[in-house]
């Protein structure tokens, strides 16, 4: 039973990584940049929810909605002010800017809210469900997390496959010049991608802090790096890859903690990534972009 219980914890943690990884992968797919500030957007989203629910005692639903709104705006703003002026710049300049934005967000959070850890109130509730005569106990948070991740995946698959905007995003990710010749507003499309990725970051932040309720300015940093790893692991640019990479990473991390060593679990996660990339440099589901004829 403990195996099953670890598996479910792993899938649940992996679901959070997957939701964050979607943001990395969608932005990479379209803007061809690594948005290293993505993890810190999660932290801002969690603070937004914390203040609304824990400080002002409003409903958790309102907390989540406002957190999504704050992060969506923040994502659009970051893109507009920091990345858009660098559209034609070398990718190293963009990468360094992204790291700068990451520190800016962390340090602003420290100034505004200090670095004292806050105890986050779960938006889900603390209960757990018992199975197999009480031998298997699964927290409601874990179940809700997994369900929300599944819903997000289905929604995104529908969005990119069936809607005009979603198809335009795929067109931009293949060839921005050709997309412009179709009449697609590439700047707007990139902006929408940041909006969606950041909205997902807010959801991930709230779920993360509901499961692990310590909130600090650095809260988003490590999950951000791991989700980035998950995105690369699954194949950066691929939406199913983000799901697969995130889930596997969560499972490896929890199993590593449970059966090998708590201290080494992160090292194990990154070791697996390195091995996968040595065998398949494009990640599990990644494909090399076909050369043009």
């Amino acid at each position, binding site marked *: 039973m403990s195996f099953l219980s670890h598996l479910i914890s792993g899938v649940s943690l992996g679901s959070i990584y997957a939701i964050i990884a979607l943001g990395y992968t969608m932005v990479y797919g379209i803007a061809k940049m690594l948005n290293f500030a993505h993890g810190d957007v999660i932290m801002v989203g969690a603070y937004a929810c914390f203040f609304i629910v824990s400080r002002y005692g409003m409903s958790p639903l309102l907390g989540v909605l406002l957190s999504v709104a704050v992060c969506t705006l923040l994502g659009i703003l970051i893109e507009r002010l920091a990345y858009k002026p660098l559209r034609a710049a070398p990718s190293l300049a963009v990468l360094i800017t992204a790291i700068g934005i990451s520190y800016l967000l962390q340090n602003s959070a420290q100034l505004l809210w200090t670095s004292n850890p806050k105890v986050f109130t779960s938006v889900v509730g603390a209960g757990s469900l018992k199975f197999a005569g009480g031998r298997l106990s699964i927290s409601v948070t874990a179940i809700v997390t997994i369900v929300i991740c599944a819903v997000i995946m289905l929604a995104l698959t529908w969005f990119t496959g069936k809607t*005009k905007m979603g*198809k*335009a995003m*795929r*067109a931009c990710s*293949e*060839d921005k*010049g*050709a*997309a*412009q*010749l*179709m*009449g*697609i*507003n*590439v700047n707007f499309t990139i902006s929408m991608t940041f909006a969606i990725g950041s909205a997902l970051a807010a959801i991930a932040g709230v779920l993360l802090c509901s499961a692990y309720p310590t909130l600090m300015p650095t809260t988003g940093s490590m999950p951000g790096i791991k989700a980035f790893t998950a995105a690369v692991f699954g194949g950066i640019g691929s939406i199913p890859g983000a799901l697969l990479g995130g889930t596997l990473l969560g499972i490896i991390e929890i199993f590593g903690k449970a059966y090998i060593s708590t201290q080494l679990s992160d090292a194990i996660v990154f070791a697996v990534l390195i091995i996968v990339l040595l065998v398949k440099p494009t990640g599990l589901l990644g494909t090399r972009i*076909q050369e*043009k*004829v």
Partner: protein
Amino acid sequence: MLKVTNINVYYGAIHAVKDVTLEVNEGEIVTLIGANGAGKSTTLQTISGLLRSRSGNISFLDENIGVIAPHKIVERGLAQVPEGRRVFLRMTVRENLEMGAYTQKASGVAADLEHAYALFPRLKERQRQVAGTLSGGEQQMLAMGRAMMSRPKLLMLDEPSMGLAPILVEQIFDIITEMNREGVTILLVEQNAQMALSVANRAYVLETGGIVLHGDASELIGNEDVKRAYLGG
């Protein structure tokens, strides 16, 4: 309809298009011919707004389009089939055509799809296939069908015959004249001067970034310099 006046385009220090002036009137097929590297694609990309001219003026339907965003230029009715086709290889044939209709109202798309399929029956057979699996000729047809989906008033084609077997080249040129008969004005860029001059009303000859000659296609086809440089004799 389209008036390009004294445009100058640079890639860093490279002066790729020098004082180019050309005009396309409604209903015409105009061709822009010239050797590899003459600046033909740069000229078309500048008209489409993907590159900017440092001076001069580009007007389309009496509007200065040299300052508006590329996607807005498409909305005005000016489409381009780019060099090398540049279809979306990971999207299906049908999705590619739908992207061509991006500026159009949803209500008209079904009819425009049928029209594209009528011009290119092969595309209908392959509508669910991913564009990356098409042959070069089919990709060219898809690129042309896709551009037609935006209901262009002026269609610019950049070397549509490139890399195609002679029989396909023939077919592509037939469709270009067919589109023109349906009321679409054409600006055709070609290295295949023989074919281009045979379908065009007027022609411009571009050499190392500048226009060196222009006139009626029927005159240029008999011009000794053109014959020597572009018609293999």
